[in-house]
């Protein structure tokens, strides 16, 4: 019996000042799936992500990771299984060098010596920044920082990758490279993003959050063609699905899909 990778049952979150951030959120993500969570600013995306590895405690409902219910006793297991990459790499890279930063997680897992070095090297290679290992984080470019932040998480050998706005703040080239990298990961992946073109490219399934509740959950392309839904949730179609601003034509791929 294979448990789903992530299972949320009626998850709710109330902030201390009484604002409701999340209300009755339920969905499951199966092993190996790649899912996007989208929504306007303040829809509750980041709050939702912080529940997936127990940084925020639920005020109602349940979170299960690989069938294990999130609780104080299971926190170490959950945090080892769910690797979380935050939006701002500066907040994630807090050690003096890239190497130390990547080693931080494995050291907390109790790895030492050869095994530790192997983990660090593998993670750096995986994201293609092995040559930056001795560098200080503030000497890296935006794209390099993002890769380093992903390496710090890969070094924990998680089964599930959760990323908050992976492409924000990157130039087009760095964004393109990062999307290529993310596509190759074998992990179960959950992204939040405003970059809907990336979502279209990486995630067959999309969950739309609106004011703390799930407004839609289904195949990405179907959701992006639902103009009413997008307007209601203050979202816009990805650029690749919008008409060309000069000639009004819709690009080839989209044209094909419309004929289906």
């Amino acid at each position, binding site marked *: 019996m294979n448990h789903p990778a992530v299972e949320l049952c009626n998850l709710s979150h109330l902030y201390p000042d009484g604002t409701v951030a999340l209300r009755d959120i339920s969905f499951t993500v199966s092993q190996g799936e790649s899912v996007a969570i989208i929504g306007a600013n303040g829809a509750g995306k980041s709050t939702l992500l912080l529940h997936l590895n127990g940084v925020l405690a639920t005020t109602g409902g349940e979170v299960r990771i690989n069938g294990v219910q999130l609780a104080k006793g299971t926190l170490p297991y959950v945090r080892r299984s769910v690797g979380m990459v935050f939006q701002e790499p500066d907040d994630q890279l807090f050690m*003096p060098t890239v190497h130390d930063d990547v080693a931080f997680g494995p050291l907390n897992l109790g790895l030492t010596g050869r095994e530790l070095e192997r983990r660090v090297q593998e993670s750096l290679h995986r994201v293609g920044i092995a040559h930056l290992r001795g560098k200080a984080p503030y000497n890296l470019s935006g794209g390099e920082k993002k890769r380093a932040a992903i390496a710090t998480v890969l070094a924990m050998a998680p089964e599930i990758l959760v990323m908050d706005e992976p492409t924000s703040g990157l130039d087009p080239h760095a964004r393109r490279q990062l999307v290529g990298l993310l596509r190759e990961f074998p992990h179960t992946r959950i992204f939040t993003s405003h970059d809907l073109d990336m979502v279209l490219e990486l995630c067959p399934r999309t969950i739309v959050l609106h004011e703390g509740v799930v407004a839609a959950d289904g195949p990405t392309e179907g959701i992006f063609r639902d103009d009413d839904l997008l307007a209601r949730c203050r979202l816009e179609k990805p650029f690749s699905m919008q008409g060309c601003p000069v000639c009004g034509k819709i690009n080839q791929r989209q044209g094909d899909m419309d004929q289906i």
Partner: protein
Amino acid sequence: MKIASIHGALLDFRRMELLAGGGTALHRLDPRAKLLVTLFFIGTVVSYGKYAVTGMIPLVIFPVVMASLGELPPGYIARKIALLSPFALVVGLFNPLFDRTVLIHLGPLGISGGWISFSSILIRSILTVGAATILVALTGFPAICRALEQLGTPRLLTVQLSFLHRYLFVLIEEGGRLSRGRELRAFGNRGLGIGSFAPLIGNLLLRTWGRAERIHAAMLARGFTGEFHLRRESRFGGRELLFTVGWSIAFVALRFWNLPQLLGRVVTGITS
């Protein structure tokens, strides 16, 4: 605090880090050796008496040799030293005022104790500031933290130092952006008073707090449980020992024998 301009401080800081990334034998030396020798050097400098001037001069050998072997740009180090401690200099300038007893006669010129002790303060400043600057430029801040910890500083403090070093300029830039927003909308000194300062600093504080919370979340997400594990290799070997003992002997020797005085006597003995 004398960060004249934020931008300047930023450049200066980067420059120091860049220098610390050099590849000379001195750069490769274990940071503990450099730290210990620098501390011993500063101890030696301050151990001289109030009126010591000539006796301290030979100690210049330490910063000069370190800067040359470490291939540090002399102009840059000189400029750092020229900043000195304004407080020490201002206080030192009172010495000639209060201590007017003539101690040395150079022909018709009488030099008072105050001027001698002021010169002494000046030389002390140059030597101590120079040694500290060279230490940082040859070692780099993270390595100094490592050395401090290996020499017994509580880990909590060295971890604080790492965080401070890591976020120092992230926050200075953030503060600079807020501050620029205020200046652009202020006219002359209007609008730059405490009325706009407090919300600005308050905002910066709130953002900082939020950042610390996010960092903490990132630490938790990677298995942090309150204990900071660090990997520390030690390489205090023969070269380090030689370096430390060698300089220490040199300092003690220079402290005992007034080299310029001996040299001077030889020179004047020959000419007269």
